[in-house]
């Protein structure tokens, strides 16, 4: 076999593919955008010498893994292109090692119809990541009547969600769960009872008591999760709990899974990295996020949930906001923070370095698990599949800097943090879309 036959060769990396339990040093050969071969057969030196060096990536000491998948991203297009576009959002994704992102439908207009799905997908054709669309459950995300879910799926939607809003009406949620089964897609639930959260701007705890800020109690999330679990069991539908954040919600999902209910869950890096004690330090509006960052006990329970498989995925909930909207009073700031470019570093620093998760376990939650939940093509390095590959420099220390974000928005609470684990290369369809 001659290396020169291939378009790109990744040599000497530690290849980790959690989907098939593979973890060995190997070379990956890419041809015509697809994975042509995985093995330790690097070809002869003479042969290597014949091909241009830019076709060989020496991944010695690095991890070579399936392209990461982030199933919860806000790309803001259409409507708020000043905050993010599909192009810039995918550049941020590439810099964070993600080759696939799922974009949420709370744009302007909302993604509640076929035309908007098609618009997003057409915009995404030239982007540096695969974009999958999550359609709305209800028209305009208003929680009043179902969107044309069949149309959305036909146009390419991989799931439905009213993310940002909880579908407060339980009868309508029941219908949505029943209806979505026809298309075998999950409903992604932003679990927050808005009567209980009552426009709280941070977690309700001693910290909200101390600061006199309106608190959103954990029970607002827990009631919502429990309701969706029971409706899921009742209808036989599929619910994916977005950005789980409380100890009670994790326990509820754990019990539901034990009961055999078809529920999955994700957690964001900020919910396993931050607590509400950060807010009073500088009233940094990047910490204004929904669900709010919780207590140390919640963080610990969420990490337990990652360990025992209660939580299936790690998603960023990348939520860009314009600087002028965040540079205001804490309780006036819109909720959300950007996460695509810091997720991997936080997973490494907060979960792997502390001995909670192995690389394989952590990566499964960012590759094969979201792929299975949403029935996406990627998430593994099988021969013949699209060559979506991420190369990680696992021990590389770096500092999060505002000026280095590729995202159009800069609302990260992690600016200034020192992280370990950095993306070396991101390869989409055999093409290098990011290089450190």
């Amino acid at each position, binding site marked *: 076999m001659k290396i020169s036959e291939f378009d790109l060769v990744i040599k000497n990396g530690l290849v980790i593919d959690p989907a098939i339990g593979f973890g060995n040093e190997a070379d990956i050969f890419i041809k015509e955008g697809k994975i042509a071969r995985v093995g330790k057969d690097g070809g002869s030196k003479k042969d290597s010498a014949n091909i241009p060096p830019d076709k060989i990536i020496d991944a010695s000491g690095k991890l070579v893994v399936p392209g990461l998948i982030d199933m919860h991203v806000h790309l803001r297009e259409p409507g708020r292109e000043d905050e993010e576009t599909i192009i810039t959002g995918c550049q941020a994704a590439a810099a964070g090692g993600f080759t696939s992102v799922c974009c949420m439908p709370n744009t302007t207009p909302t993604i509640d119809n076929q035309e908007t799905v098609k618009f997003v997908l057409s915009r995404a054709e030239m982007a540096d990541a695969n974009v999958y669309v999550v359609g709305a459950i209800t028209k305009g995300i208003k929680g009043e009547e179902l969107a044309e879910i069949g149309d959305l799926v036909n146009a390419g939607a991989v799931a439905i969600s009213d993310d940002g809003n909880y579908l407060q009406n339980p009868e309508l949620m029941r219908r949505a769960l029943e209806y979505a089964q026809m298309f075998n897609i999950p409903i992604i639930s932003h679990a927050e009872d808005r009567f209980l959260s009552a426009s709280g701007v941070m977690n309700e705890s001693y910290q909200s008591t101390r600061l*006199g800020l309106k608190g959103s109690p954990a029970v607002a999330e827990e009631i919502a999760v429990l309701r969706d679990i029971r409706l899921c069991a009742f209808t036989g539908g599929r619910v994916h709990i977005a950005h789980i954040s409380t100890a009670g919600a994790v326990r509820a999902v754990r019990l539901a899974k034990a009961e055999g209910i078809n529920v999955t869950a994700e957690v964001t890096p900020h919910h396993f990295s931050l607590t509400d004690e950060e807010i009073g330090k500088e009233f940094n509006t990047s910490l204004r996020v929904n669900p709010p960052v919780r207590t140390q006990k919640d963080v610990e329970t969420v990490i337990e949930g990652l360990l025992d498989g209660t939580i299936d995925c790690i998603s960023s909930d990348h939520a860009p906001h314009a600087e002028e909207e965040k540079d205001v009073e804490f309780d006036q700031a819109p909720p959300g923070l950007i996460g695509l470019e810091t997720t991997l570093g936080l997973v490494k620093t907060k979960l792997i370095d502390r001995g909670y998760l192995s690389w394989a376990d952590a990566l499964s939650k960012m590759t094969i698990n979201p792929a299975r939940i949403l029935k996406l093509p990627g998430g593994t390095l099988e021969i013949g599949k699209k060559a979506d590959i991420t190369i990680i420099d696992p021990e590389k220390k770096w500092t999060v800097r505002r000026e280095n974000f590729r995202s159009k928005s800069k609302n990260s609470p992690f600016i200034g943090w020192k992280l370990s684990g950095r993306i070396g290369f991101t390869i989409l369809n055999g093409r290098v879309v990011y290089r450190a």
Partner: protein
Amino acid sequence: MQLKSRHLLGLEGMSEEEITLILDTAESFREIIERPIKKVPTLRGITVINLFYEPSTRTRISFELAEKRLSADSISFTPATSSVKKGETLKDTVRNIEAMKIDMVVVRHSSTGVPYFLTQCIQSNVINAGDGSHEHPTQALLDMFTIRRKYGRLKDLRVVLVGDIKHSRVVRSNIWGLKAMGASVAVCGPTTLLPVEVEKFEVDVYQNMDKAIEGADVVNIMRIQLERQQAGLFPSQREYTNLFGMTRERLALLNKNYTIMHPGPMNRGVEITNEVADGDASVILEQVTNGQAVRMAVLYLLSGKKAEEE
């Protein structure tokens, strides 16, 4: 001895020594407001702006008088609406004001953290005149000043704060300040108006007024806002008064030589009866007078701390 910070954002974390310095200095200023000419030239050439995003009569006038009595040039700016709604951000408003060469800013705002926010965008000394439900440090200082004048100390006095504990910035500042000074502090109110984990303030917590005030030296009664009833936090004014109103009958439960306080404005007949509000043990008007002395002290002490010192 100086204050540690060049701003007064709150009493949380302030030491006994710092609070004592403010109260001692206020003692000297208290004498000035009894003089025929109630004015000293100390802050001549210093410009102070009172930036009141929330309506307030008492606190704003108290600050204005304190500034005038120290010979500062002062102006008050009370935006009719939040500037957010007018399209100008708070940050822009304040930077504009500072471009007018202001030395000190006194700010009241409905959002927690706004005084801190100002310190991050401007060079002036910032004094918090109340931020959201967070802190109202000068009110707590004047409360402590009033108590200390009467008893000569704060240490080991039993002070009970009654009413809407959850939404009160006066309560929070009083808790931090009184605890720093070694007082014994209790809070009392309906469960719906006690914030979660309030016991972590390390105060005694009561939902029963009679038990709360038994043996107390000082009862500081918070205003109950009628919106709280509309929000369903208590069923009626009548029931509130029955359960938590400071009535003449309840005075018998207090220590001899007790003191009744209220930061104002009062809802007479709701949280406090006329008899109690106007009784011999009421220092409610003394609080107002003392407020000027305390604010003069704070203005004076902070004026000595310029940006380049930090």
